[in-house]
């Protein structure tokens, strides 16, 4: 109940109301969201494919990750702001939407997967930086690939179910 009140408060704010009532604001914000998210997904998948040994096998992992992760984080910040604005325009509707919930759960899992890999998976990085990663790191790459594919799919399904 308190959550519903908070969501109602959010979507009744000035800017969310303006997004909801404008014909061009929502598609414009959505375009920014899509533009940023393709860069997030593209850069993360590059790192995932290296972990799985399917691409960039001859490059040190640390070097590739160092070049790709600034793209990921910059684009993620943009996608998150645009996504939050889209959410705020119809907070109650999105909150009740199943694909939206699936997307948020997968985002959370992708974040946990990334944090675990960062803290535990890179502890002996120097032993495999130029080689195939050990199984747990490969697993993290595979999980990330699957989660991000699901995030894209669930995101697309939101548009067909709201």
């Amino acid at each position, binding site marked *: 109940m308190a959550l519903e009140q908070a969501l109602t408060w959010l979507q009744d704010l000035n800017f969310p109301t303006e997004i909801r009532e404008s014909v061009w604001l929502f*598609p414009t914000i*959505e*375009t920014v969201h*899509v*533009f940023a*998210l*393709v*860069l*997030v*997904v*593209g*850069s993360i*998948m*590059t790192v995932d494919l290296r972990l799985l040994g399917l*691409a*960039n096998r001859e*490059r040190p992992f640390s*070097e590739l990750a160092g*070049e790709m992760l600034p*793209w990921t984080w910059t684009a993620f910040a943009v996608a998150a702001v645009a996504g939050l604005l889209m959410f705020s325009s119809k907070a109650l509707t999105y909150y009740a939407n199943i694909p939206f919930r699936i997307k948020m759960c997968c985002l959370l899992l992708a974040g946990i997967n990334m944090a675990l890999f960062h803290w535990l998976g890179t502890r002996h990085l120097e032993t495999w930086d130029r080689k195939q990663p050990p199984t747990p790191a490969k697993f993290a790459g595979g999980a990330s690939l699957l989660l991000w*594919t699901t995030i*894209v*799919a669930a995101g*697309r*399904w939101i*548009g*067909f179910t709201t």
Partner: protein
Amino acid sequence: MIEQFCDWLSGTNVSVAFQSANWFVPLVQTVHIIAIAILLTSVYVVSFRLMGLTRGAQALVTLTAKLTPWIWTALCVLLVSGMLLTITEPARELLNWAFRVKMLLVLALAGILRVVQLRMRRNPEYWTESPARRHAARAVGIVSVIVGAGIVTAGRWIAYV
């Protein structure tokens, strides 16, 4: 003429079958978006190098050579998934001006990428060997970043115009 073609295409068995499966369009769009992710990220990584905004451990020619198969594979996946979406809803795409702008931008980007590659195939230092060439590289990088963003923008606006 195009209207008649759309009418005919949307009445074919294959189009009717795609239309009747309500999961078909979002599924194909998901594949389409993931292919765009691979294409646009590759194009932006190369473009930022051309513009001199990022440095990489690999030479530009090595980076481009490695990304080339990914770029063309992604373009093929985009073409096939885009055609499936067009077969499903011909009028939504073929009568839409955002779709037409998008197709022109895709052709422009493919042309730019081909030129960038071909120049380096003959001379690996082509884009860096003189100040004039570095200026040209910067211009090519800026144009491909704008064209890439234009493709995504036009693509999303197909749903709204």
